[in-house]
């Protein structure tokens, strides 16, 4: 399975940025950012549902805060990874970095997908949790 293609399709479903999206694809950055977007939520949510597993934190707003935190993490990962890698790429070619707002927009899309993925993961893994199986609902 071509993970790069899979994540590219996912991200570009929401927005395609001329040149920027191609660079991300060519540098295989979709794989790094996409895997972080999928795997970090599953690890953090598993900890929430099975290690913390607490009545103290089983309200819907606790879950929402956690997901917002995950979105912020994803935004930072997407922004820093894409900016650092593409800056390095263009620096190697002695060219000026041709993108500005694209980093922010792409990171926002990554955060949005994190929200979706976190929700889906929650719906899948919550049922085994003693105290949080009804969180967020």
């Amino acid at each position: 399975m071509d993970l790069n293609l899979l994540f590219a399709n996912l991200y570009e479903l929401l927005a395609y940025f001329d040149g920027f999206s191609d660079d991300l694809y060519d540098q295989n950055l979709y794989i790094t950012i996409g895997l972080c977007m999928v795997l970090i939520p599953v690890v953090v949510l598993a900890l929430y549902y099975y290690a913390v597993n607490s009545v103290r934190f089983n309200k819907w707003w606790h879950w929402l805060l956690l997901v917002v935190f995950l979105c912020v993490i994803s935004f930072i990962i997407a922004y820093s990874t894409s900016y650092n890698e593409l800056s390095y790429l263009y620096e190697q070619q002695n060219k000026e970095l041709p993108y500005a707002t694209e980093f922010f927009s792409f990171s926002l899309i990554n955060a949005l997908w994190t929200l979706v993925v976190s929700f889906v993961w929650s719906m899948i893994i919550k049922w085994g949790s003693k105290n949080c199986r009804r969180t967020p609902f």
Partner: protein
Amino acid sequence: MSKIYVFGIGGTGSRVLRSLTMLLASGVECKAKAIVPIIIDPDSAAGDVERTATLMKQYAEIRSKLNFDSKKANCFFKTDIQETMTNFRLPLSNTQDVLFDGYMDVSGMSKENQALVNMLFSQKNLGSDMTVGFKGNPNVGSVVLNQFDNSEEFQNFANEFTENDKIFIISSIFGGTGASGFPLLLKTLRTNDDIANKNLVHNAHIGAITVLPYFQVKQDENSQVDSATFVSKAKSALAYYERNISKNNEIDSLYYIADDTRTTYENCEGGTNQKNNAHFIELMSAMALIDFANSEKPSTAVHKEFGIETDTNEVIFENLGKVTKGKLRKAMTQFNLFSKYLAENSELGFLQQPWAKDRAMDKTFFDGDFISTLEKVQLDYLIWLSEMTTQQRAFTPYIIHRNSDKVFDLVKGISPKRVWGTFDSNYNLFNNRLNGQSGESKTGNKEQQFAELFYLATQQLVKEKFNIE
């Protein structure tokens, strides 16, 4: 298992029945298929009677929604309480709005009989209104109560009596109604040939508790109730019981209980104001019935007394004997936790918990009749517990507070243990344990699931926090 017909005579009879109902609600084991309370009290408006009858009706209403097949762990409300007479009361005829001399038709008697009556009864006795009972006069009671077998209800009781059913009689010895009613009732049960199933009733396993003085009343010249006479009345009644009850084996098991540390109550001859606070002696009198339920019919009369391990004015579980402590501590603590949970947590809070959502226990359920009746019983249970702490000899096994940060600072003499492996404490820990229950707590109707759930969770909590099994 058999039914136990429990005759509660007079105010003490009703108050002991109240304590018994609280014990059964909390799940204290009683080896009986059902308890059939029968209250005998001429005081139709007695506060104690009314309160007990209401409580027992509520108990029966709750229990009717539950089932207790062998798979179920729940012991709350396990023993059936059956109402076979209206308001559990055995009606007494001609005791309302009539003076004692009118009841006996003294004016219609011959002069010789009138002279005899005047010798046996004071003018105060003869002029006493029986609407509120016999006001501490057993000589009056012994005349008026000599009519048990007249009522249709008593005949129904005899009709329904089956082999192996038992009879238990609760009475005080220092008042009017109980002191006179007990020997009369016993005589009727043992010797009356005009009742149905007379052989079964005559030979039934019959036990009784005779409550000796355990409180006193304020001196009041206008009242016929005088606690200065309690001991002398108890002495003469005991002598009578020895000659007429114990020696001829009319009774199978006779329990005695008393206390020389006595609270002083307001002097009240009867009526709605006769509503004494619950007392440790009444609780332990109810335990006599639990003991009786577990016993076989002895060949000769057995006499038992109750005592505590250490003499103190503030009795906690540790002061009770091993057997009594074993029967009471776990059940009462579980039901106390259950009662406090519903009383101290908002509906909105627990509606969000998985244990409620999983079982579709929604607002309609929590606003329904079952929970409303349960809350009434539980509130009464908490009041009953706090009433016992106000007595001169207080039964005060629990720290009574409404501090949600110290939910498990509850059982005196036991420091709650730390529960490891969870971030939850207090009511969060309670919810945690509710959320963790499965199996039978998810089968049956919602009421059944609710009772099972709380029984299992409180059972786990009392083990984890107090090491009570």
